[in-house]
C-alpha cells in the first residue's frame, strides 16, 4: 500500500467515496464482524438473542393485537390469510433492522470518536459498519420468519426471493440516512433524540401490526368524512417503509413480485437520500474530528 497519497483536498471530494470505500472494504468487514461479536460476547445465550428478539416482539404484539383486540388481517395482493403472528413477524423484522440500524448509525461517529480522532481512514466506514452489523440481525430474523412460515404450514416458493431487491432498496435507503444522520449528529447532538422519537412514531405509521390495505380502504373515507382534502392520504404513503414492509409481505407471504407502485416511492427516496447523505457526509468528514 505504499504510494498511498492523501492530501487534505482529496478528503472532502465526493468522487473519492467509492475508491476509498473499495480500498477500505476489508476494514468495513472487520468492523461489522467486530460489532456483531462484541455485542453478544458476554451474553449467556449469545447469538441466540438475535433470534429471540424478533420472536419476543412478535409475542407481545400478538398478545395485544391478536389475542386481546382480535385483529384479523388480509393484505392486498395476498390470497391466503396467514396466522397473525407470522404476519407480525414479517413486519417486525425489516422494521427492527431499520430502527436498530439508524439508531446505531446516528450515534456511530460519536461512539467511535477515540478512533476517529487518532487514525485516518475513510470515515464512511463507521456509519456503514453500524448499519452492516444490524444486517446480520436482519438475516437471522428472516431465517426465523421462513422457519415460522414453514412451521405454520404456509407455502414458500422462489417468489419469496423478491424480498431481495426490496432488501436492497432498504439498504440503500438506510445507508443514505446513516451517512446523513451521523454527520449531522456530530454537529447537533439533538439528532439522536429526534431519530428515536421519529422511529417510535414510525412504528405506528408503518403497516406492521395492521395491513396496508386497511389504510388504503379507510383513510380516504375518514378524510372525506371530516372534509379534509384527499391528497392528505399521501402523507401516510410518504413513509417509504409503508411500501417496503408491504412489499416484503407480498414476497414472503404471497410469494410473488411486489406491486410496482409500492416500490417506486421508496426507490426514489433511497436514491435521493443516498446522494444527499454522501455529499453531506463528505463535506463534513474531513473536519469531523474537530467536533468530537
Amino acid at each position: 500500500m505504499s504510494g498511498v497519497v492523501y492530501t487534505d483536498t482529496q478528503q472532502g471530494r465526493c468522487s473519492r467515496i467509492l475508491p476509498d470505500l473499495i480500498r477500505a472494504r476489508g476494514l468495513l468487514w472487520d468492523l461489522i464482524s467486530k460489532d456483531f461479536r462484541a455485542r453478544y460476547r458476554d451474553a449467556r445465550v449469545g447469538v441466540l438473542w438475535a433470534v429471540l428478539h424478533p420472536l419476543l416482539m412478535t409475542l407481545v404484539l400478538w398478545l395485544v393485537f391478536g389475542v386481546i383486540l382480535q385483529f384479523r388481517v388480509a393484505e392486498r395482493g395476498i390470497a391466503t390469510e396467514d396466522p397473525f403472528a407470522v404476519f407480525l413477524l414479517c413486519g417486525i423484522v425489516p422494521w427492527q433492522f431499520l430502527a436498530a440500524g439508524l439508531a446505531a448509525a446516528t450515534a456511530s461517529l460519536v461512539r467511535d470518536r477515540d478512533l476517529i480522532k487518532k487514525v485516518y481512514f475513510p470515515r464512511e466506514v463507521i456509519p456503514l459498519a453500524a448499519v452492516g452489523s444490524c444486517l446480520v440481525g436482519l438475516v437471522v430474523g428472516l431465517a426465523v420468519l421462513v422457519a415460522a412460515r414453514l412451521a405454520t404450514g404456509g407455502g414458500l416458493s422462489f417468489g419469496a426471493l423478491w424480498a431481495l431487491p426490496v432488501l436492497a432498496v432498504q439498504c440503500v435507503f438506510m445507508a443514505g440516512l446513516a451517512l446523513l444522520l451521523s454527520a449531522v449528529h456530530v454537529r447537533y447532538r439533538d439528532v439522536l433524540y429526534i431519530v428515536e422519537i421519529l422511529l417510535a412514531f414510525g412504528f405506528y405509521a408503518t403497516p406492521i401490526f395492521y395491513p396496508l390495505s386497511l389504510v388504503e380502504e379507510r383513510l380516504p373515507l375518514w378524510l372525506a368524512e371530516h372534509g379534509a382534502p384527499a391528497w392528505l392520504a399521501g402523507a401516510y404513503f410518504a413513509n417509504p417503509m409503508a411500501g417496503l414492509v408491504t412489499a416484503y409481505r407480498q414476497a414472503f407471504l404471497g410469494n410473488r413480485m411486489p406491486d410496482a407502485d409500492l416500490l417506486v416511492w421508496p426507490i426514489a427516496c433511497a436514491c435521493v437520500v443516498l446522494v444527499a447523505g454522501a455529499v453531506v457526509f463528505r463535506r463534513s468528514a474531513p473536519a469531523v474530528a474537530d467536533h468530537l
Partner: protein
Amino acid sequence: MAIIDVQNVSKTYRPRQAGGGSLAGLLNPFRRRPTGCVHALSDVSFSVEAGESFGIIGANGSGKSTLLKLLAGVTVPTSGHVAVEGRVASLLELGAGFHPWLTGRENIYLNGRIMGMSRGEIDAAFDAIVEFSGVGEFIDNPLDTFSSGMFVRLGFAVAVHANPDIFLVDEVLSVGDEAFQRKCRERIGLLRERGKTIVFVSHDLGIVNALCDRVILLSKGRLIARESPRETIDFYLRQVGDARGIHTLGAGAVEAILSGGRIALFHDKHEVSAPRGLLVRTLDMGVWHESTAADWEVVERGPAHCRARGRMTKLPVRHLWDLRIEDGRLIWRVAIECEHEAAIEAIEMNLFLPTAYARWHYGPRGGAFPAILPGDLTWAQLVTPDSACDTAAALPGDGSALPAVLIERRTERPHDRMIWWNTDYVVGARLLQTGGPIPDRERPFPPGIHELCTLVVDLGLAPDALVERLEAETARRTVSAGRLSAVFDRGCVRLAFAGADLTTLEHLYASLFVDGLWNDSASLEWDTPRRDGVRLEASGESRRFPYRQQWELEPRGDGIAVRIWIDVAEAFACQEYHTSICLKPDYDAWETPHESGPFPPIEPGQEDWRHANRSYAPGARIAASGPALPAVSIELDAVDGAPPCRMTAINTGFHDNARVLQALRVPETGAFRFEPGRHLLFAGIVKVAES
C-alpha cells in the same frame, strides 16, 4: 523527495459553547455568534524528506497535537495544504480502536486493518507481533483482561509491524517498563536505519536531540526553526524559561540558561559548555548525586542575575546558587544549606567543555588536551591537583568560533582544588572540576549554610590576549639562565630546558619535618612574587607553624641560584628538613661526590620512596642524567655559607613516578631548634649540562 509537505497551513478552531452545538442553539435567534477563534496553527510550512528523523517540540498548547493530527490525516487545515505520501502509523495513540471485549488476536487483526494492512500482511506479521508484544498465551483472552502495559505493548507491536512509511511518535517512549522502553528505542533506531521517516514529538529534549536530524519549534501556533536541533532546543528552553527551575540570563555576548540544576553557557549564540553543562555533584554514602536531581526553584530573577534553590531529593541538602553575568563573565557562586548534619564525602563543581577546546592552562602550567578516542573508557586527569592554583583556562582549536575561557576560583576552603580532566569517549568533553573530598575534620557538615566556591568564567578575552596574559603571568614568575628556565609556582620551582619540562610532581621544593609532619613549601600561603631586576623574591607563610619562608631565585652563570630562608616568629623544633628536585622518570643515573649508580626501575606496587645511594656522608653536589634530557645538578653554594647536607638520590613510589635529588639536613642528635629570627635553610645552584 519530500514525503510530507506542509504548505502555509493554518488551523482555526471555533470555541464550542454550551448550546452552540445543539439544534436549539441553532434555532435560537438571539444566540450569540461564537466570537474569538483559537488559532492553533498559523501559516506553518515545512517539508520532511523520506528517511529523515524530524522532531517537533513546543510547550503545551503550542499546536503540536494539531499538527500531528493534520499529518495523521485525522483532520484538515482551515487553509493551506498538507500532502503526505505513504502509509502513516501513529504511535501517538497506541491501541486506538482496540475493543476491550475482543481477544488480543481479534484486536491485532482489527487494529492492523485500521492501520491499513491487508489480511495477508497481518497473517504474515502475526507471530512477530505477538512475540514483540510479549503478550504470550494471553493472546486469545479478551483485551479487558490485559494489564495496561500489555495493552500498550500490543499497540506498539502492531504499529511497528504495520510497515508504514512514516511513523508519528509521541511520548510513547515513556510507557511500559524499562526493558520495553529500551526495546522501543532499539526498534525506532532500527526503523531509522531502514530509512523510515520518523516524526517525533516529545518533551524529552535529550531524545529529540539524540534522534532527530532536524527539529522545529512551535510557539503559539507559529513555526520557529533554528539551524540545528541543539539551537532549536536551546531556543525552546529559553522560551519556556518561566518554568520553575529555568531562567535565562545574559549580558552582552554572554548568555546562560539555568535549567534545573544545570547551566548551559553561550557566547555569541554558540554553546560554550558541553551538553552536560555546569553542574554540581555530591558524594554521599558512596553514591554521586548530581544537582540536576534536585527540585529547583528560581527565587530571584533578573536579566543578568538570578538566584536559585535546589532541594536534593535524596539528601538533607539544599543547593543555593547565585548566577551573575557581567563584563563578559559568568559568576557562579555555590553554597549548600544543610537541614541537619550531612555526612557528605565530597562535593565538586563541574564545568564540561566541548572537545573543540584544544589547550588547557592550569596556573602557570599548560598543555594540549589529548584527543578522546573511542577506546577511552575512563577519565584521564591532566594535571596534578594543586590546592593553591586558582586560575585555569581553555583555548579553542583553530577555526573554532568558541571563545577562550578563563576560569578563576574564589574559595575559602583550603582543601579544594581544581583539576583538568579528559572524560571518556561517551561523555566526550573536557572537564574542569573544582572542589574535592571533604576532609574528615569537616565532616559531617553541621546544619546551616556553607559557602563552597565561586567560579568566575571569563569569556571576554580573545584567545591571543588570554595567551598573552597567561604568558605574562608566567614570565613574571620566571628566572632564566641561557636555555634553562625556572618558574616559581607557589613554593615549587618548575624547571624547563629549551621549553621541555625537566621536573614533575612538586618540582623543586623544600620541606620541614615538624612534630611528625612534613611541611612542604607548596602548602604555604604564598604572596605574589616580586621582581628585583633579574632576581625573583617570594614569601609564604605556614598555616600551621610559626614561620615564613623567603625564596630567592637568581640566574648565576649557567645555572640558577636558589636561596631559602626561614623567618621564625616563635621558637620551634624541627627534626630534619630538605630541599629536593623531583625529576621526570626518564632520568636513569645519579652521581654524588662519593658514589654513583643507576636509578633502579620503579616497579608497580612500590609505594614507599627508596634511597638509591648508600653513603650518607655530607657532600656539596648531586646530579642526575638520562638518555633524553640534559643532566641536572644541585651544587651547594659555598659562598653563602650554606650548611653541609646529605646528598641523596631517591626513587619515588610507582604512583608518583619520579626521580628525586635531595639535599637533606639531619641533626647530629635530637632536633634543630629554630630560634626567632632569620635562618638560611638552603643555598644552592641548579645547573643543567647538555649530555
